[in-house]
């Protein structure tokens, strides 16, 4: 297999700033974008904090018709895709649109639009037999999450393989992994790969309230997301999107692109254990990391940074720490690990791609983003979590991992593109 995939464009819609530059400014400064929920009245909820995007779709170029048609998650995806395409320098349409694929992740799809329309058609839940006469024409597009991939395909004028990947909170890693598969197997030369979620609505908040997964730290929203901190008490919901242009490496080189990174290894495993529970030993995540390293032909000392799932729940951070030790051995103690969810919250399926975008930017800037709000040590989390302040470091290869409801465990390794490696 001689076809490799490189990342040549990045687009981001994230809490705390829209666009990859604003995103990197936030992450490298260690600022947090979590706050009191403003998108709906959360007063009756256990968790009332979230990381929201200050997003005006019209200001980012969407027409009023597009705004009406698209759920917020699709809007995020389209704005991120446009930025990524512009960044890559690819001229659209390409000569053979059938060679352009789309692989977008989302955990909950267009839930926000689906829920909003439900309240209208059901008269705020009074009618089980909802009233079809008030239905909006694009209601089906809200029920089918694949709409998000459709909108991105239209942006990219893609006529190759397209899919929405929905493996819960690993969707954003798995969608990129799927895109790499398409390039490696030869069915696409360019793939718009990324993820989007906009879960800040009552039904999604309520379902995490019900299992006490989200943080009830409502008195201090800016410091509510505390991955690896001894006082952590759940994740803070977020929203956003990241879309990347990935290309077959030689084709990218031939057109003179300046890739950010090469995707060196990807693997997924499932814990086959529990839909939401994690075993403390991190066994299956460790296996995913080992397989990804094997595919990348790298050993633990070659990994210079781990972008952790680091959701900030009691069980996750312990599970993950064990997985890093099991897969990297003693080298885990020498490898910086950080969770950007401390700053931008947990945007479910989107976060995996947002984290990969952070890794791409970290490689470009040779800076490790920090874990914000980390002040109190937890004896079960005893690695180097880069507390609060970003760190300059030589980064050759970085690992990003994710863990999701349903038992999904995924790992991706990005490396400096070959040219940069050769020059170093």
């Amino acid at each position, binding site marked *: 297999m001689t076809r490799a995939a490189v990342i040549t464009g990045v687009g981001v819609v994230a809490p705390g700033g829209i666009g990859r530059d604003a995103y990197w400014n936030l992450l490298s400064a260690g600022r947090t974008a979590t706050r009191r929920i403003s998108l709906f009245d959360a007063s009756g909820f256990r968790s009332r904090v979230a990381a929201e995007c200050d997003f005006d779709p019209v200001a980012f170029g969407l027409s009023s018709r597009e705004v009406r048609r698209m759920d917020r998650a699709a809007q995020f995806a389209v704005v991120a895709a446009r930025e990524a395409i512009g960044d890559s320098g690819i001229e659209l349409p390409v000569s053979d649109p059938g060679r352009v694929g*789309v692989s977008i992740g989302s*955990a*909950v799809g267009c839930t926000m639009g*689906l829920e909003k329309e439900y309240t209208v058609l*059901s008269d705020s*839940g*009074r009618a*089980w037999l*909802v*009233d*079809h006469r008030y*239905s909006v*024409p*694009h209601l*089906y597009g*809200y*029920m*089918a*999450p*694949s709409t998000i*991939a*459709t909108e991105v*395909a239209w942006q990219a*004028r893609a*006529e*190759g*393989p*397209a*899919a*929405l*990947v*929905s*493996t819960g909170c690993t969707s954003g890693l*798995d969608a990129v992994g*799927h895109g790499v*598969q398409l390039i*490696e197997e030869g069915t696409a030369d360019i793939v718009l790969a990324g993820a989007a979620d906009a879960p800040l609505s*009552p*039904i999604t908040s*309520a*379902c995490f309230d*019900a299992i006490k997964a989200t943080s009830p730290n409502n008195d201090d929203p800016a410091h509510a997301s505390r991955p690896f901190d001894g006082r952590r008490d759940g994740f803070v919901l977020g929203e956003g999107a990241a879309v990347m242009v990935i290309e077959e490496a030689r084709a990218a080189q031939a057109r003179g692109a300046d890739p950010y990174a090469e*995707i060196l*290894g*990807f*693997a*997924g*495993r499932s*814990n*086959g*254990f529990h*839909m*939401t529970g994690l075993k403390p030993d991190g066994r*299956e995540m460790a296996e995913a990391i080992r397989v990804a390293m094997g595919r*990348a*032909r790298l050993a633990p000392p070659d990994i210079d940074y781990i972008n952790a799932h680091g959701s900030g729940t009691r069980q996750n951070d312990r599970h993950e720490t064990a997985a890093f030790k099991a897969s990297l051995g003693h080298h885990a103690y020498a490898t910086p690990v950080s969770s950007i969810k401390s700053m931008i919250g947990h945007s479910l399926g989107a976060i995996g791609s947002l984290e990969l975008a952070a890794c791409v930017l970290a490689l470009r800037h040779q800076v490790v983003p920090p874990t914000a709000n980390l002040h109190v040590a937890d004896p079960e989390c005893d690695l180097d979590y880069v507390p609060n302040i970003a760190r300059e470091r030589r980064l050759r290869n970085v690992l990003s991992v994710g863990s999701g*409801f*349903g*038992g*999904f465990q995924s790992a991706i390794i990005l490396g400096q593109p070959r040219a940069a490696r050769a020059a170093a």
Partner: protein
Amino acid sequence: MSATGIRDERPRALVTGIGVVAPTGVGTRQHWESVLAGKSGLGRITRFDPSGYPVQVAGEVPGYDEARHVPGRLVPQTDRFTHFAITAAQEALTDARVAPSALPEYEMAVVTASSSGGTDFGQHEMERLYQKGPSWVSAYQSIAWFYAATTGQLSIRHGMRGPCGVLCSEQAGGLDALAQAWRLLSSGSRLVLVGGTDASLCPYGLVAQMATGSLATTDDPARAYLPFTTAARGFVPGEGGALLVVESAQSAHQRGASHYGELLGYAAGFDPRPGSGRPAVLGAVIRRALSDAGLTPDRVDLVFADAHGTPDRDASEAQAITEVFGPCGVPVTAPKTLTGRLYAGGAALDTATALLALSEGIVPHTAGPDRPAPACDIDLVLGQPRPTRPRTALIVARGHGGFTSALVVAGRHRGLDRGVTSAEVTSPVKGIPA
């Protein structure tokens, strides 16, 4: 070296087990008998009173009792689309005679397609939320509604800890899941439990589907879904789907497992945005799938059509088929007139039906239509099944928005010029389970 572990050599992907839950029946045998008999599963909606809606006909799974088919604990924790998948998966694994606990856990995976997730569960929980308040929402909402619910539950239930996945590409999802299963066989997995189900026949699910304007509003079940005819006025929505066990030839051989047939080729594409002036991609996708299968059009014995049931899309599908195979160049069938369109379950079920047709040597007919419309110059198999001993079949699936996929499957020992491997010699032809 491959970043995703995909090897240059693609292993043969055999289908060693089939499980069906569909309006044509619960279980593969009942489904196949209904298909051959042209026994329709369409009828007036019974799960709620549809009187107030312009759409009143659907394909419901008859007599399905989740308490009989789903472990008691899981019934309230999962939506109906997952109930169906749990049932079909159990049948498929039993049919494949596989004990997952005896196989390496990381070499087995689950890949499912979902088009709309746990809609019925979600409507109930939104009702509680808006009528009673956030604290009334079920603790299971977070694991029942999302699109990954089925894959997660099946992975846990059967201890399959490999690279599991979930693909949403609407009606094309079933084929895309099968293709993903094949990719996994190329990257270290030996057995994949794969398919799709959907079950969005609750009031909100139906109303959302109605918004496309493509559902038939005829209230006569026999006249509601007549694809490729001048009477086509839309399609009937259905629920259900199929799960298959797809296994590398080596794994099936090691287990001494029999099989129905194998995946031969696949391709996918996406239609250009409406109004772009560019043609739909279906013809090109079919040609790529045939090329992937190493077959010329004359080596395809049967086409399972997407059969949207709306005049424009029927015509464009027929045109793509004639463009590749010539006018009336290949028998075309759409047994989905018996079930309605099952969304993520549709193409998974068509693939199951295709493999049954190949192993039984019979082309199932399209019950309902009397003759194709003039715009559809295809050899639509009508009236009764044709016992023509087909060896290969093409399955076509098109999803809302532009998703377009095509899969080629082959039966076994049907005279294909393929190298006979030791697995073929020792592995018996699979019959329909009793």
